[in-house]
């Protein structure tokens, strides 16, 4: 177990290193002169030269990388040339919004998916299973941008619930009730996408688990149906659920921008799109790096949890 964790941590460090290289080179991969790209074609040669020096572009590229890496390790991702604000502080302001949104959506998704999957799997192809199955299948085919439009149309416009429309985001610190209201639509949208994944994964894994011999064995002990479902079937099946959740939550961190963009909620995704549109490359670089590391970390954490739940894996 300890060896496994050490090996995983070494792998994690390796991947983060490669991500840092990738993110660093991102702006160097852009066509044309970097200073022109950053400052725009109208920039004066003097300013360009200043920036050239500032970015350390006169030095060899690997040196530039290590300077950059050193800064990153100190929490310094550079200063945006567009907004003149520190990239790190911009990210620090936006990230909590993503985390709150993901957290609420995951609570909702698990709260719906687990009991429904347990119910479905008890009688596969029964009436309830068919209804749940058809419902989840339909939701699977509705992309989040359509969900959010429909939600805005009905909840925000037709019902007129406050703080649920476009550009109505309220910070948690200023009014937490309003904040929760403004979080409702994006969180529900993300929750629907996650729910579909969790429900389908858990249901099919539970059905397979319930056909295992050890379930019959547990029945033959004379313990209750409830206990069999939760103690004997759910735990082995939760491995598949956790695996799906790891991938999915990472995906939400990277892909949550659609709802943020549509509702103008100033999270990381919204900031990223704005940065791309404004050619704010240092901010783009910073966000890409933070999000990538975040995705890797989430996968790492879920692998670790799966390992605790399932003793079979670390012994392989």
């Amino acid at each position, binding site marked *: 177990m300890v060896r496994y964790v050490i090996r995983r941590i070494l792998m994690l460090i390796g*991947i983060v290193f*490669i*991500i840092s290289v*990738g993110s660093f080179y*991102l702006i160097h991969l*852009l*066509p044309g002169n970097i200073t022109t790209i950053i400052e725009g074609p109208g920039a004066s040669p003097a300013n360009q030269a200043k920036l050239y020096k500032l970015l350390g572009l006169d030095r060899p590229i690997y040196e530039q990388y290590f300077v950059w890496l050193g800064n990153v390790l100190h929490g310094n991702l550079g200063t945006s040339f567009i907004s003149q604000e520190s990239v790190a502080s911009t990210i620090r302001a936006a990230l909590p919004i993503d985390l709150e949104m993901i957290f609420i959506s995951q609570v909702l998704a698990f709260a719906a998916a687990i009991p429904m999957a347990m119910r479905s799997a008890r009688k596969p192809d029964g009436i309830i299973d068919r209804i749940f199955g058809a419902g989840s*299948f*339909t939701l*699977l*085919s*509705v*992309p*989040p*941008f*359509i969900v959010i*439009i*429909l939600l*805005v*149309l009905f909840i925000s*416009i037709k019902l007129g619930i406050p703080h649920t429309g476009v550009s109505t985001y309220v910070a948690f610190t200023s009014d937490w009730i309003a904040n929760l209201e403004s979080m409702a639509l994006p969180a529900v949208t993300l929750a629907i996408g996650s729910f579909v994944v969790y429900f389908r*994964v858990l249901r099919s894994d539970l059905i*397979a688990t319930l056909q295992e011999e050890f379930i019959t064995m547990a029945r033959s002990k004379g313990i209750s149906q409830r206990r069999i479902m939760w103690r004997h079937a759910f735990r082995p099946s939760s491995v*598949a659920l956790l695996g799906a959740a790891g991938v999915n939550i*990472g*995906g939400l*961190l*990277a*892909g949550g921008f*659609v709802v943020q*963009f*549509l509702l103008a909620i100033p999270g990381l995704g919204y900031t*990223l*799109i704005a940065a*791309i*549109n404004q050619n704010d490359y240092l901010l*783009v670089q910073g*966000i*890409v790096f933070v*999000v*990538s590391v975040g*995705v*890797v970390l989430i*996968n790492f954490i879920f692998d670790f949890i799966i390992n605790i739940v399932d003793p079979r894996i670390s012994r392989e």
Partner: protein
Amino acid sequence: MSNVAVSEEQTSIVERPEKKAPLGPLFWICVGWIALNFLGAIFANVLPLQNPLYQDYASINVGPSLHHLFGTDDIGRDIFSRIVYGSRVSIAVGFGAMFIGFGIGTPLGMLAAYRRGRFDTIMTSFMYILLAFPAIIATIAILSFWTPRSLLKIIIVIGFASVPLVYRVIRTATLAVSTKDYIIAAKVQGATDRRILLKELLPNIAPIGVSFLLIGVATVIALEGTLAFLGLSVSPPTPSWGNMINESRTVLQVNPWLAIFPSLALCLFLLSLNFIGDRLRNHFDVTEVKL
């Protein structure tokens, strides 16, 4: 010896009847729907449709009628005609990108899983590192810098971005099949690697590949919609389902039809693809690989 031969003939019942889940009528309805969309996309020019770009200022934001089946948008363009033409973009992006993704991912994944060894180690580590990068952000970043945008560029970027995913699915599927005794048996008979890959492995991973392909096409089509919202898909006024839904946002209160019809077209298409993929997976009893 001869009596053994005779005895086998006596029992003509084949003992392992195929227990395939039936495809069902809904499956064929979905296939029909996809085919209909394909036909519409291909023959949009020759079909008696109105010009999708013609702006009829006499009828702006009108609801469904005989003249405009699905109504018109805020500058008087026929929604039905735009949906039919818009399917061209979705179908081209979806199938085009997956063509690239599978074209590269399938041979690499099969080779890695069959050969194992160093090629597999290097290839798989490389792909897994690529998977760690959020593909969607990379897609957006590249598309926003790579101007001017065109349908082909979108297809290429999404296609390449999908390679690691396809690789992973195909490799896992091939690994599961590679351990089967009939692969060893083929080696023992002196079959070449090429023959084993094409005759023994490919037919057995094809069902997994096809169902994943369909689900992949659905995902990519939804992604095109997302890109349209960010203004990164084909430029207006060329209609695409994503573009149309995006344009409808500003007139949501006045003309909900503009949002509802393209959304319906998109969702029904995705639903059909997902359903066909899911049914095929059940039908071929694909349990080795979790997609």
